[in-house]
């Protein structure tokens, strides 16, 4: 943690002095993340625009930046705000806040009819009525290359998520950010972050499950 702060601090100081190397270090570290983040809100071309606005804002505000928050979160938060603004301007998405308001509804993770509504044969209510079936043997997790079809299933499932869920799952599980970072970037509480992540993961798993079970029914 302290090492991270020291590292941030030396980059900030160098950048304030106009050191291009420091800027390149930041680009190498965060530019692809900024772009992918922007693409959650706007198209490919507009994402480049968001990236430019983000880095311009970073440069213009670096003098005022107080390293209370990590530099990474600060940069990504700027990117999210720029992307949201552009998306609203282009009317590509509905305002984030209205979606966030809807998202407190209690939707259950797995359809309730998968569980026993009342005790049956000595098994209490709330236990599986229709238990999940194992998936076919997959390549080992070390085998990082996923089949194209599986990738498509995952991507489609994520695209179908409502916006705050999509943001959280992309940042956490695809970009690999920590819960703390995601909370700082999206300005949400840890609990809310976890609820969104939970719903999103559940839906992606359901999509994969549907895909794998169909594959088995069709006898591969």
């Amino acid at each position: 943690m302290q090492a991270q702060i020291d590292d941030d601090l030396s980059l900030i100081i160098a950048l304030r002095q106009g050191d291009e190397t420091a800027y390149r270090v930041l680009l190498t570290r965060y530019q692809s993340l900024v772009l992918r983040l922007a693409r959650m809100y706007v198209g490919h071309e507009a994402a480049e625009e968001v990236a430019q606005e983000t880095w311009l804002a970073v440069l213009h505000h670096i003098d005022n930046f107080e390293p209370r928050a990590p530099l990474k979160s600060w940069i990504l938060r700027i990117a999210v705000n720029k992307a949201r603004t552009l998306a609203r301007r282009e009317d590509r998405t509905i305002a984030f806040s209205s979606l966030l308001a809807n998202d407190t509804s209690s939707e259950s993770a797995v359809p309730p009819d998968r569980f026993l509504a009342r005790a049956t044969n000595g098994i209490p209510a709330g236990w599986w009525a229709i238990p999940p079936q194992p998936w076919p043997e997959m390549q080992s997790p070390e085998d990082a290359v996923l089949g194209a079809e599986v990738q498509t299933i995952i991507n489609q499932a994520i695209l179908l998520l409502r916006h705050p869920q999509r943001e959280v799952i992309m940042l956490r599980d695809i970009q690999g950010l920590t819960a703390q970072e995601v909370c700082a970037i999206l300005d949400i509480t840890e609990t809310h972050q976890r609820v969104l992540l939970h719903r999103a993961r559940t839906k992606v798993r359901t999509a994969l499950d549907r895909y794998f079970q169909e594959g088995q029914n069709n006898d591969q």
Partner: protein
Amino acid sequence: MTNEPLDLTGMLTCQEVVELVTTYHEHLLPPEEHQRFEAHLAICPPCRTYVAQIAQTVRMMGALTAEQESAEGTLVLLDLFRDWKRGRTLSDTD
């Protein structure tokens, strides 16, 4: 199926396990709940399957191949820096 039936009444239900799985994976269950969660997994193969599938889903998302960026985009960003630096050096004399 000759085993003496387990008393399941005090245990977490499968539905509860499904709702708690993310909190479990995030290591945020209070110790007592954590224990109850694992006690349930110990006797419930379908929930073990479910929890493993969620974990596998997360691993698969982490393994998605990223899109490539254009080198062009980076050049624009470097220009942007040089312009900023030039403007800054000029205004230093204010």
